């Protein structure tokens, strides 16, 4: 889904019963992280069987076989090489975009947890931003501002930051009502110090879980942009471009062109969602 929908799920640790040990959660985080790290390492260091940027005009739409394990596409690109090579751009951009969303969204969310005028301003601005078809706005920004990685990251932040703002705000409101925050205020801590020293460490786990979800949304947004022909320029491999070229020929039965990059996207998204679930259990099970 390229529809970035942010769902606020109430953080209610009390309502959860601990079903399994923390060890299982650590294993879950590791198991979800492993495929992504392996894919990233492979894209940089694994010697690829064919060049991901040089098509072979003699080998067009070959089905998967001993020569080309994942087959070749309509221009003669080796699908296996390009699927692995795509991770080189797609993954770092997604992580970068999600990280920037976190860096922008967390402080704004903390500020928005107060009841001063700027808190209302931040929340109303978030409302307006979320009422826009954000994928379209991202497409508009990237196509008007130019096809550069910086603009793609800006687009991801536009989609991702509102989620951080909302979640951090609702988490921070809960923390703010606790005794130790009252105590800190009574001892004369400045509001900013309360936020930095007392509230921030307690909501950081929420932000971390959201970070993995934002990365998985970012992967889908990047693939969606590339699918629509925006973002990455032609010879650079990317999953979205590959799926697009596969979608154009799938009606003729060439299923492999779109299938393998799609599987790569789904693998990364499932792994990230798995990490976020395990992290969430880890956090809630404290």
């Amino acid at each position, binding site marked *: *889904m390229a529809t970035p929908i942010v769902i606020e799920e109430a953080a209610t640790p009390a309502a959860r019963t601990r079903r399994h040990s923390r060890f299982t959660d650590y294993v879950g985080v590791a198991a979800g992280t492993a495929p992504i790290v392996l894919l990233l390492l492979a894209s940089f260091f694994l010697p690829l069987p064919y060049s991901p940027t040089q098509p072979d005009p003699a080998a067009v739409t070959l089905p998967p076989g001993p020569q080309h394990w994942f087959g070749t596409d309509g221009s003669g690109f080796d699908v296996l090489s390009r699927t692995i090579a795509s991770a080189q751009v797609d993954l770092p951009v997604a992580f970068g975009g999600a990280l920037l969303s976190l860096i922008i969204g967390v402080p704004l969310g903390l500020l928005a947890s107060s009841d001063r005028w700027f808190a209302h301003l931040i929340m109303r601005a978030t409302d307006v931003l979320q009422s*826009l078809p954000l994928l379209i706005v991202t497409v508009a920004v990237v196509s*008007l*501002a130019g096809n550069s990685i910086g603009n793609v990251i800006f687009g991801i932040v536009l989609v991702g930051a509102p989620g951080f703002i909302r979640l951090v705000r609702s988490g921070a409101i809960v923390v703010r009502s606790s005794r130790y925050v009252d105590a800190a205020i009574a001892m004369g801590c400045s509001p900013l110090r309360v936020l930095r020293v007392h509230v921030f460490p307690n909501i950081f786990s929420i932000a971390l879980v959201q970070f993995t979800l934002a990365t998985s949304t970012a992967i889908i947004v990047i693939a969606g942009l590339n699918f629509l022909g925006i973002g990455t320029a032609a010879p650079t491999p990317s999953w979205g471009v590959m*799926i697009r070229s596969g979608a154009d020929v*799938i*009606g003729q039965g060439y299923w492999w062109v779109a299938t393998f990059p799609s599987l790569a996207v789904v693998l990364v998204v499932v792994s990230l969602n798995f990490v976020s679930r395990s992290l969430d259990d880890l956090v809630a099970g404290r």
Partner: protein
Amino acid sequence: MNRLRFAAWRLFFMLVSLWAIASLTFLLVAILPSNPAVAIAGPYATPEQVTQVENDLGLHDPLAQRYFEFLGRTLRGDLGTSLYDGTSINHEIAQLIPSTFELIIASLIIAVPLGIGLGALGAYFHRKFADRASSLVVGVLQSIPDFVLAVVLIYVFSAVLGIAPGPEGQLSIISVPPPRVTGMIAVDAILTGKPAVISDALSHLALPALTLGLVIAAVFARISRASLREALESDQTKFARASGLPEWRVVQYAFLTSRTPVLTYGAIIFGALFGGTAIVETIFNWNGLSQWSVTSMLRTDYPAIQGFVLVAGAITLVVFALLDVLAGFLDPRVRAQ
């Protein structure tokens, strides 16, 4: 707050948001570094011609003046003309919006019962087999991007089974489009009553609507599972059970309390759908508003982009406001906030 004051406050906030969206779409073009004059004058224009076009467009006027001219024009309901072919944006949007609505409505018809059904199964049989099964289905649906799902559906139903048409738009080439009544081709075909065209239009609608419908169903399922679960665990439900009400009555009451969050997120989903349809319309060659907007973006046709963002944002805000007012009428707790 009483109902009318709540509605009035909500409408006021909607107007302020509309103004914010109009300003954003203006800034989108005014601040971004692309020069529309270069796009209009074409690749072979001399610098003098570009300057001439810039003057015609008023790009050298002060920003504030251009902003108020833009606001005035938008307030009068004039979205300008396309830089690409000079057609009126208002006309273009009015022509294309019904087919996008057709797609959205059809996918909601699939998504709402399926999503709420899956969510209700999960909530009622909490942590039992039915919950695990429905969570698995929802988890799988949530991990599959819409463009991947579309490709899979086209391959299975069109290329392999041959029971659905390929991605060729709203009708086959041989079908004669029905006379325009609502602009939604399937609805027009039914209204004007040509059996062959009706089945052709519906079969072309099936796969794109199923793609979007399955994707949104997953979101509806998660929301309704969470909110129905909460309602089923409430004291009110315990009291209903203790009073000896039949089980279906208990579930019915729980449903009534859980509908507010489902409605609220329904509005958010509706907004997100405009982005979601862009990809689905592009894959299925669906001649709708979102596909047109993507094409306009690739052409840097900035009045068209502004017009689309403005209209899509406005529709979303109106739907948000209407659903909020509706939720306020149904649920007094919303008004109290």
